[in-house]
């Protein structure tokens, strides 16, 4: 599903964020990416979504070679992904419902289909009773669940989450992880970057460990 082949990421100032990454994530697999802050976790995820380009090497996502993708094709790659951003990127000028509907509008669904799917996604993360609320009124855990609903509403095959449990207390974190597991169980490929040890200890999933841009074996 996702393949990194000799991927390097070097920034113009000479800083090398990722060095010679080689790994494959199979379809339907659940994988954690871990490492200290600055180890290159976020950079790795950004390369998958073509938010950044690798300096060299090749990245394949769902049979598309991401680093050779034309600019006009990038949106379509991103549509096959569901991304939960580290800084959440919630739009505070609209309701919970409207936030979750955005990916469907981009895809171009009919109104009735959109409404049904938005409610299904909100139901899945337990926010159905908050659909008319504005994000500012949500708790930290609820905001995170809103992000998950927005990431999964268009039913992507790959779910990517960057530090989804940061700043959440243990109970909330567990709850969020349960949601991810339920998507994994229905066949979604799940990729989570985290440095939260309790989560890693609880899980039997494969762990890719990064240290200063190198993959530790």
């Amino acid at each position: 599903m996702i393949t990194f082949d000799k991927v390097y990421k070097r920034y113009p100032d000479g800083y090398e964020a990722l060095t010679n990454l080689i790994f494959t994530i199979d379809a339907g697999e659940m994988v954690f990416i871990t490492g200290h802050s600055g180890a290159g976790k976020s950079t790795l995820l950004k390369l998958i979504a073509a938010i950044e380009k690798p300096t060299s090497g090749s990245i394949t996502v769902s049979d598309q070679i991401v680093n050779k993708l034309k600019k006009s094709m990038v949106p379509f790659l991103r549509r096959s992904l569901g991304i939960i951003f580290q800084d959440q990127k919630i739009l505070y000028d609209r309701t919970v419902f409207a936030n979750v509907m955005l990916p469907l509008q981009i895809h171009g669904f009919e109104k009735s289909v959109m409404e049904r799917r938005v409610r299904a996604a909100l139901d899945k993360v337990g926010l159905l009773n908050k659909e008319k609320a504005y994000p500012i009124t949500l708790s930290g855990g609820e905001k995170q669940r809103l992000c998950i609903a927005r990431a999964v509403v268009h039913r992507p095959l790959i779910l990517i989450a960057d530090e989804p449990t940061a700043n959440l207390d243990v109970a909330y974190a567990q709850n969020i992880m349960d949601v991810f597991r339920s998507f994994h169980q229905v066949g979604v490929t799940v990729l989570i970057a985290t440095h939260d040890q309790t989560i890693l200890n609880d899980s039997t999933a494969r762990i890719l460990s990064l240290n200063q841009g190198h993959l530790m074996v």
Partner: protein
Amino acid sequence: MRVWISQHWQALGVTAKQFFFKPVSNFLSVAVIGIAFSFPLGIYTLLDNLQSFSDHFVHSPQISLFLEIDATESDIENINSRLESFDGITSFQFVSNEIALAQLQHESGMGDIALHLKKNPLPHAFIIHTQHMPPDKLEENRLTLQQWPAVSYVQVDSDWTRKVHAFVKLGRVAVIMLSSLLGVALVIVIFNTIRLQILTKQEEIEVSKLIGATDRFIRRPFLYFGALQGVVGALIAWIIIAVGAQKINDNLTELSQLYELSLRLNPLSLFQVLLLGVVAGFLGWLGARLSVAQHLSQIEPK
């Protein structure tokens, strides 16, 4: 196809919502466009009317033939029969001095003065309509008529139409220049409006790009917004002119009675209004398109 329509429909909905979400500021910028455009539009309307008014005289020139004040019945008969056999005349009409005086009393508001006159000071006259002919031919005919017995004075009433034509021609050039300049101004105004809008929606644009929105999708509401502003601006300009023309017509009625002419300012035709809307809409779209091309690429998600 259905998806495509629904996406456009959604973009239009977003646009409309935005337009009415901030009615005051949007109305102000649209009003500026409308008022600016009412200026060349008003001049155009006036010229258009002036042209069709003078065209009427160019196509059937009118000559007034005044007889000597002491002309007799036989003189009138003589002129009448001469006119009947004169080449190039489409119609003519005898206006006796009594009729002329009665008209003067009735229509010119000088009734009192006329009543106190002991003798009718007006001459008998013929109003002659000729076929369309070049000005020098018209002048030649005038001189011929002038030579006839008992004729005091012959006047080509439509001489002024040539001057009007030259004036209208000049006016058209001015209108074209003025509207071109204001067209450019419209593009600039919308360019700036859209720039501000993009700035306030920076976050939304960034998120949309991150979750797979194409440039086309992001562009669409802005383009609609620009076009909508242009069209509404044109609509305001048209309303200003329509109301103005109505007001002028109220006053023209009186004037036209005084001059025995049917003077009326005709409003723009439906076709002209539609054309105005399409052009303004296109210019708005163009301003938005340029603005979007300039500013959207600067917003790249990180």
